[in-house]
């Protein structure tokens, strides 16, 4: 309710008061409880709870088919939940506050024959901007993002990455207070992914709430204050990235020359194993209760051929494996690989 008195974000470049406050003290931009959605009898989302503070960067993390897009579509009012409630800035009908929301869908859609500035203006018009103001802002945004040369070009004449940028600018043209991005990094090269990350940080610095879905853990880990891990339509974890990482003990990262030997008895059975390109073996496992000195002694005496050993705070990937399970983590890795191939 409070947010509705402010219909425009603060000017770019200024850090808002909202963004400066700790996220736990901020009112909620999004609150969802017990969201359930079935499609033709198949349970797509099963009791999802999400709470996103205003001004936060919030990630929904999970493999393809986990229910990320369905959850976002329910939050936005594109589809209604079969059960549960959702509130955006205190409203249970997202269309009532459409002007405060910007949405970039996973499957990008623009009219192919529209010019870039017209496409942005049209998206702004859907959110209440006049066409004239939308065109003006559209041109400014295109210029600011290095697409000034494409203002008069039709969408069908653009590369996929350029078209994606135009759509993202159309999502932001009306200066929303909540930006919802569904797999925003998908289809972007590394340079544009970096630009997008910077843009998301800039939005959050201005007080805009950003929620995005991704199957790439690194994006979430780098950007997000809070994440919801979603797998099989459920949310086994929702909270801060730090809390997720702290939920599992620190990890030992061991690099050895040898793969087998007496020393292996010093490692837990479920230690994760990787082989690197140089032939070295990497092992990841929690710090043993006997202590790191004892472990090191056993490795040396057992002739492991220790190349390096470090104690690392668990990453979000480790937390994901711990929380969502190994199968979900494998699916996530496969999605990431498929995305990179594409």
């Amino acid at each position, binding site marked *: *309710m409070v947010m*509705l*008195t402010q*219909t425009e974000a603060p000017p770019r470049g200024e850090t808002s008061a909202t963004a400066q406050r700790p996220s736990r003290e901020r009112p909620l931009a999004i609150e969802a409880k017990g969201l359930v959605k*079935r*499609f033709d009898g198949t349970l797509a989302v099963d009791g999802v709870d999400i709470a996103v503070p205003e001004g936060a960067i919030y990630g929904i993390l999970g493999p393809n088919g986990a229910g990320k897009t369905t959850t976002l*579509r*329910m939050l*936005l*009012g*594109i*589809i*209604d*939940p*079969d059960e549960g*409630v*959702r509130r955006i800035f205190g*409203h*249970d*009908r*997202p*269309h*009532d*506050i*459409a*002007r*405060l*929301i910007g*949405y970039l*869908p996973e*499957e*990008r*859609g*623009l*009219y*192919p*024959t529209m010019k870039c500035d017209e496409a942005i203006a*049209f*998206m702004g*018009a*859907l*959110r*209440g901007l006049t066409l004239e103001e939308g065109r003006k802002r559209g041109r400014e945004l295109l210029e600011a993002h290095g697409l000034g040369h494409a203002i008069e070009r039709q969408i069908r004449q653009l590369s996929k990455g350029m078209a994606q940028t135009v759509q993202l600018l159309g999502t932001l043209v009306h200066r929303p207070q909540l930006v919802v991005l569904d797999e925003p990094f998908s289809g972007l090269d590394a340079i544009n992914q970096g630009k997008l990350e910077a843009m998301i940080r800039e939005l959050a610095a201005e007080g805009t709430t950003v929620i995005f879905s991704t199957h790439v853990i690194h994006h979430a880990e780098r950007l997000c204050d809070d994440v919801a891990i979603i797998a099989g339509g459920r949310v086994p974890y929702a909270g801060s990235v730090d809390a997720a990482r702290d939920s599992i003990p620190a990890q030992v990262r061991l690099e050895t020359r040898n793969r087998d030997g007496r020393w292996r008895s010093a490692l837990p059975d479920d230690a994760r194993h990787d082989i690197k390109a140089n032939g070295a073996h990497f092992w990841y496992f929690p710090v043993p209760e006997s202590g790191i000195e004892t472990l090191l002694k056993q490795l040396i005496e057992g002739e492991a051929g220790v190349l390096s050993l470090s104690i690392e705070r668990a990453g979000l990937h480790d937390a994901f494996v711990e929380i969502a399970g190994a199968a979900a983590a494998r699916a996530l890795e496969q999605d990431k690989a498929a995305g990179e191939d594409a």
Partner: protein
Amino acid sequence: MNMADKSRLSLWQAAWVVARRDFQAILFSKAFLLFLLGPIFFGAISIGAGMLGAKAADSAEPPRLAVMLPAAEAEAIVRAHRDLDGLIAIFPIESVAPGETEPDALLSDRARNLGAVLTGSLARPRLTGTQDQIESWQGRVSLLAARALGPDAAYPSVALERTRSSMASTRSAQTGTATAAITLLFLLTMLLAGMVLSNLVEEKANKIIEILAAAIPMDAVFVGKLFAMLAISFVGIAVWGSLGLAGLTLGPATGAALPTPAVGWPLFVALFVLYFALAYLLIGSVFLTVGSMAATVRDVQTLSMPATILQLAVFFLATFAMTDIGSPVELFAAVFPLSSPYAMVGRAAQSPELLPHLLAIGWQVAWVTIFVRGGATLFRRRVMKSGPAKPKTKRRFGLARRPTGQ
């Protein structure tokens, strides 16, 4: 004022955004060019439809011969007609007492369907009517008179007296006008319904529907698309109407050759445009709803077939019904919502009464409201697979009142 009101477009504002985009996009598309060429297409189709119309005119009540002779001669004619009926194709006859009225008045009497009037005597018959009619009947009237005079009587010469028109010739011409108007109405609505459907399928394929659905209520998308196409059709009608008017103004005086509808040209044109809009909104709602249920182009083809068949059935019903104004079939066609605009256009061409049009327009507007609201509700539920699986009846026809989200 509720703060939320400042943060969203109203249904009609949102529909306007969609309609404006669609209108501009379609106006500069190949589809619109095809639509503009529609009347040429119509010309080709009308050759076939003309045959149907001729058949319809044939199946309408045939014009009669008024026999205005002394009683004895009239009885002889009736007997001769009875003898010849079945042996040759002969027109029906109707006895009228001599002196009851003038032949011209008889021919323009709307209550009678007279093609010509026989006066004079059996020996010197005189046939009054339009040139085509009396020349066509001249021989058979002579045969009829000879038969009435006796077995050995010579064929009398029939004197011809031409009038400008008769009710029968007027009715025949108006039947042609009605057929042409119904066919044009059918073709225009068919073209438009196809265009609105392909437009929606294109948006589903382009994934734009997702952006629309996130920003504005789906009802607004439905209404915007429907009315954008209606506006497009008015542009087409305006273009061809202007060309037609210019042709009539600048070209040779052909106005007299056009069969004048019963309600007169200005009112007929106005009624045609109104009935066209109503017919399109009815069938367009059906097609948009069909489009919302289709996931692929193949689905569209499959699902739109029943709607197209329905449209054809409506066309044939109206064409068949217009031959007998006031009959149960014609009344059914006028009352059934989808065929009502077609049937009433046919009626406007043939009957001067205006009250039925007022009633029909009110009736059709009510059904358009039901169709658009029902279509929009189904569209919203189906196009994004949104809404509860088992909707409550009280929400079924609500455009703006929804449980959550939309």
